[in-house]
């Protein structure tokens, strides 16, 4: 009886203790979840983690498996975040806290300037490693990942050399040449690109616009200049930049001559306009855009598109991988990063995933150079993009380039779709940037 009472009491006490305990464990595990755990195994095995966004391609192309086979003492794990915006927010937080970072982290070109400027000290300098030889990369790619002190914090994966994509059937209907060589010859400069456009809209199929959007044309033009939004000294110069003012004038002109479909790129409407063939050309068509066009236009668009040389080829997009200083296995990570971005692996990423190599050496490998694209009427894209890549200017980029370009694009949409005058649109660009860039 006594025992029974005690048992019941202890039971009750135990329940209470259990409740408290569970609460405590929850709280502790919550805290523990924030701290990083060590990946070291006892038998000399190293686990390297690679943090990427979207469908980055390393895993999909089987590069990790191959590396693990070559190096049995290394295990590679990948953390992938689907959305780039979520990925970069997480990366910033982790760089700030210096914890939770993977051994290798991917960096999109839109964020590389932020990393080389404000956050450079969080990354290892690849120049300090003798087993890394960055000379096989295109110089502009190395330049983008080099910080003001000359430290190289990222190795290039892919780039996006641009051409002009066009609908061959529409060109034929308008009495224009359809052969890429001849089409490229038509576009001697951007002014003549617009002239051909006017001719196209006069003679071509009813209701088909020449190009998709004014901001798209702006992007194509401005990217061909050495100086865009930031000068070599790292100062914001978009208001004085020749490239910005020329590109702005051309985009305004295209809008005023009625040559655009008044779209905004990467919206649903824009995708549907591609599927419906509402416009005849993409003024900036990097290698990765071919995949986007094929995905949107589907089987019905097969063989209708081709790609011709741009008046000013430039680079649009691409990524890097870097090794955070906070990593435990920096040497092994640097070795893996160098291997993942070596010419052979870049060529394989191109064959399997269509990511155009940032390594000049990889661009000359036969499997890249001789590649054709069946969707684009077997266009010799290997030859084509390697020629375009050779002309990419090495423009300085700054951490605020994206903010600036976005504001200018909005200004052009105001002209293109909202009927704003160019003067007041530019004023609103400047005032919105004054606000956005003020600390």
């Amino acid at each position, binding site marked *: 009886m006594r025992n029974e009472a005690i048992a019941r009491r202890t039971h009750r006490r135990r329940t209470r203790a259990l409740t408290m305990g569970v609460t405590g464990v929850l*709280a502790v595990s919550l805290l523990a979840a924030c701290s990083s755990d060590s990946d070291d195994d006892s038998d000399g095995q190293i686990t390297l983690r690679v943090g990427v966004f979207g469908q980055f391609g390393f895993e999909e192309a089987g590069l990790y498996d191959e590396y693990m086979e070559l190096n049995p003492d290394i295990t590679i794990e990948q953390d992938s975040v689907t959305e780039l915006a979520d990925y970069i927010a997480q990366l910033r937080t982790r760089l700030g806290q210096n914890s939770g970072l993977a051994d290798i982290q991917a960096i999109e070109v839109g964020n590389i300037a932020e990393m080389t400027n404000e956050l450079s000290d969080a990354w290892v300098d690849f120049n300090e490693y003798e087993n890394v030889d960055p000379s096989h990369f295109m110089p502009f790619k190395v330049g983008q990942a080099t910080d003001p002190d000359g430290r190289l914090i990222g190795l290039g994966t892919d780039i996006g050399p641009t051409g002009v994509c066009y609908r061959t059937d529409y060109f034929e209907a308008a009495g224009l040449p359809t052969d890429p060589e001849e089409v490229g010859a038509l576009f001697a400069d951007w002014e003549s690109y617009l002239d051909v456009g006017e001719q196209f809209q006069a003679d071509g199929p009813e209701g088909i616009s020449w190009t998709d959007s004014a901001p798209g044309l702006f992007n194509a033009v401005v990217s061909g200049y050495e100086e865009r939004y930031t000068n070599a000294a790292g100062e914001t110069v978009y208001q004085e930049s020749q490239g910005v003012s020329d590109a702005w004038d051309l985009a305004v002109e295209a809008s005023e001559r009625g040559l655009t479909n008044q779209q905004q790129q990467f919206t649903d409407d824009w995708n549907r306009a591609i599927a419906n063939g509402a416009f005849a050309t993409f003024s900036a068509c990097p290698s990765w855009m071919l995949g986007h066009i094929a995905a949107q236009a589907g089987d019905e668009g097969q063989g209708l598109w081709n790609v011709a040389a741009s008046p000013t080829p430039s680079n649009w997009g691409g990524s890097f991988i870097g090794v955070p200083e906070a990593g435990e296995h920096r040497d092994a990570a640097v070795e893996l990063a160098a291997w993942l971005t070596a010419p052979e692996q870049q060529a394989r990423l191109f064959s399997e995933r269509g990511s155009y190599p940032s390594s000049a050496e990889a661009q000359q490998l036969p499997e890249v150079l001789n590649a054709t694209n069946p969707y684009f009427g077997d266009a010799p894209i290997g030859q084509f993009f390697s020629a375009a890549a050779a002309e990419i200017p090495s423009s300085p980029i700054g951490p605020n380039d994206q903010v600036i370009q976005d504001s200018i694009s909005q200004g052009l949409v105001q002209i293109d*779709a909202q009927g704003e005058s160019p003067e007041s649109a530019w004023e609103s660009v400047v005032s919105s940037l004054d606000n956005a860039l003020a600390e």
Partner: protein
Amino acid sequence: MTTDHREAAPPVTPGGAAPRRKDPGRRPSEPADPKAAKRAARRSRRYRWDIRYSPYAFILPFFLFFAAFGLFPLLYTGWASLHQVSLSRPNEMEWVGFDNYTRLWDDEFFWNALQNTFTIGVISTVPQLLMALGLAHLLNYKLRGSMLYRVAILTPYATSVAAAALVFAMLYGRDYGMINWALGLVGIDNIDWQSGTWTSQFAVSSIVIWRWTGYNTLIYLAAMQSIPNDLYESASLDGASRWQQFRHITLPSLRPTILFTIVVSTIGATQLFGEPMLFGGGGAEGGASGQYQTLGLYLYEMGWFNRHLGRASAIAWTMFLLLIVIGLVYWVLSRWVGRSSGEED
């Protein structure tokens, strides 16, 4: 939990081998030896503590989580709003006092966002609550298959904002949208819903209305069903029409509920974020000239696109203070309305 039967009804142990209690008549309050008295006192103290403090232990998890995910972010945001902080280096703060707040006064983009939030809030909340009231009134009648209607009306609320906004963005598409197609049938030219100020705000509001009307309807319906039926019976005996019954019985009885829905909708409207963002295709600029940029979007753009965490925090706190002011106004209004209608009676 509050009663203790141990002394009063000793349980029979299996086998019955337990020793009998020596003095069954003794109460714990009159112990024989001091040791037992001490034990008893300790025991009763524990029970008092149990009764007094265990409820706090039970709700403690909530407060722990609230402190970690509610209170701390709130205070930290307040602290950050007094500093110049870059999203790139959130640990490096530079004290600027109330600069981030005072600059909002001259910030045309802030006022634009505030105005948009207000207009979108009004054109989404007012029709939504009126419609919800009407629908609830209809559903309150004895209907065949009323359960089906009630479930159907709540479905939009269960739809994720992303799915709803994406479908609406497609409906409102300029060239290939269904709404423009339907308007085209009656001879109206394509409307560029996104580019116009009023058209885009109307479109965003329609998403909000579609999603939240059902929710408010159910709340009104629940309140209506708790109104005693004899009120209606005696009113109809007195010859009151349906409309008079609605005005003089239903509406006054619903007053606290209506106030609740207005407060909740106002908070929702002030924090409106997902609908305008997804309507614009995921950008935070809220249209090329910010024509449907709400405060939530402006805050997001400032923090996550322009990377000014301090300024974004100041906007967040301003929204918070704004809601407190609105809440106070509602409170005063409700007291005033309550008193004036009380005098009427």
